[in-house]
């Protein structure tokens, strides 16, 4: 049993908006162990950021509670703040401040001594590749450089738990990849627990070990990306034949559905489809049915979201922020 970094029970946030009560987060229970890398995935407005803001003491919960890094968010906000790093959706650095000055100020904010602050700032400037811009003001930085400064600011006091709210939104693909390399390295070197929100499917898929899918203020699935995909979506195996008769015989034999668009094609959803595919071909061949083409497609987290909600996350993202689809 690992130590728990975050535990929440019944965490709820309601807002009053235009005379109506909106439940942004509904009685959320969650547990994150030390050293985990968890992605909070969901469409805009699902309640991801609101949850993060409650866990980081920025927003009081309407009801329910949580313990973060060993401190209660209600009774020991200062304790939580000393122990966590937080990188919000915005840019953390003041526009007219120089990069190094901001890091020094941040050290003082966290009660680090002067010498310790300077050493730590130099270390972070080095590891986050900010050396070239250390004496520039924040407004002179590129989007990727600003984001790396945000991460450096969040890490000044070596927190054991780092919250990242949409860390790569708005970055170009190159800067995103670079940012992720830094986050993965940080984790490998320090074992920092990382809790992040994202609406990039591939990001959650490739980088997080555990994905929590959030929709309408509730967590609707919570597992590794692999387990979510195999249990909720399953692999899709498609087989093509020379004739419709072959296809019908094959469909009956392996329990596949005929493709409505092409009578010579059948498809089957199978767990572990990559392993099932050669077996299907062999079985059918033994029965005298020759497969002329075969494809295997692994499910994506979008398939998972679709299976859970009947809606596509990718489409929702496209509706909300069309400009961002290009980088998905």
């Amino acid at each position, binding site marked *: 049993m690992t*130590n728990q*970094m975050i535990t929440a029970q019944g965490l709820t946030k309601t807002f009053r908006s235009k005379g109506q009560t909106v439940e942004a987060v509904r009685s959320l229970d969650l547990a994150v162990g*030390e*050293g985990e890398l968890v992605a909070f995935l969901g469409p805009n407005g699902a309640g991801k950021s609101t949850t993060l803001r409650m866990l*980081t*003491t*920025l*927003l009081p919960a309407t009801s329910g509670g949580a313990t973060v*890094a*060993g401190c209660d968010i209600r009774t020991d906000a*200062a304790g939580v*703040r*000393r*122990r*966590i790093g*937080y990188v*919000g*959706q*915005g*840019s*953390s*650095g*003041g*526009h*007219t*401040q*120089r990069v190094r*000055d*901001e890091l020094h*100020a*941040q050290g*003082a*904010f*966290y*009660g*680090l001594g002067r010498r*310790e602050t300077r050493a730590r700032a130099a270390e972070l400037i080095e590891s986050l590749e900010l050396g070239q811009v250390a004496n520039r*003001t924040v407004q002179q930085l590129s989007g990727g450089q600003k984001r790396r400064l945000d991460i450096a*600011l969040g890490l000044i*006091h*070596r*927190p*054991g*738990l780092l919250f990242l709210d949409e860390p790569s939104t708005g970055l170009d693909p190159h800067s995103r990849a670079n940012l992720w390399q830094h986050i993965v390295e940080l984790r490998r070197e*320090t*074992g*920092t*627990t990382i809790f992040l929100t994202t609406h990039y499917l591939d990001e959650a898929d490739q980088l997080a070990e555990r994905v929590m899918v959030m929709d309408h203020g509730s967590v609707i699935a919570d597992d590794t990306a692999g387990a979510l995909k195999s249990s909720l979506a399953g692999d899709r195996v498609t087989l093509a034949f020379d004739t419709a008769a072959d296809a019908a015989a094959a469909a009956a034999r392996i329990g596949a559905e005929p493709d409505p668009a092409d009578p010579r094609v059948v498809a089957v959803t199978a767990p572990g489809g990559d392993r099932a595919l050669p077996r299907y071909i062999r079985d059918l061949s033994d029965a005298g049915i020759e497969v002329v083409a075969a494809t295997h497609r692994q499910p994506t987290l979008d398939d998972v979201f679709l299976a859970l909600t009947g809606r596509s996350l990718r489409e929702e993202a496209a509706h909300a922020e069309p400009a961002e689809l290009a980088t998905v």
Partner: protein
Amino acid sequence: MTTTAPTARPTGFVHDTAAVFVRESKPLIRDPFSVVFSLVQPLVFLGLFGPLLIGAAGGDVAGTLQWFVPGILVMVALFGTASTGANLLFEMQTGSHERTLVAPLSRSALLVGRALKEVVPLVIQGTIVVLVAVPFGFSVNAAGLVAGLLVLAVFGIGFGALSYTLALACRNRDWMFWMVHQTLLFPLMILSGMLLPLDDGPGWMKAAAAVNPLSYLVGAERALLAGDFGAPAVVGGAIAAIVTCAVGVVVGVRAMRRAR
């Protein structure tokens, strides 16, 4: 192996205030020219309005400057600190204010450290205005100038705090900040008697001036810069500055404690 034990250490109000003050002062130290830049407006009044006053006074240069320059000093304090909330407003929009809210800083320190920073540019600017006026015949009592700047500094902390309060209240509505700012700034200035004496004005203007802390400040600066430490106006100005400071800090700290 990770640990939940923080390297961050608990700090107190004084430490936090100093940390916020140092951060706020950094852009000023890095780019001192910005202090001079915001002097343009008061210097325009000094250079373009001053000669008209001198003409109206029948060409009495020294006498007019003796009356006018202390008012310009109060104008420096007013203009410099009234718009300082815009910086906070901008930081609320970009996210760097949020970063300070997640840091283990006392909320009061976030306000007081910022308000204290107002003193630095104010003292530098006030000194520059006086130095510019001296070659034209303005005579200043050195001890009086120090006391005058001190009174202005106390006022500036309070007025800056009020500007930050306005920024916190106008979150995500910067047009409202500028509307309130513009609506109040000029009436406060004119009803202080810093540009023209209010002695010949109608009764309602005198009544309005009587509740305007700036008119007491202007009176005090005129007495102090002339070296008249015993004048009743000095006491009035000091009280006006202290009251502004106390009200500003109390209201500002309350607003910052509620900040999200």
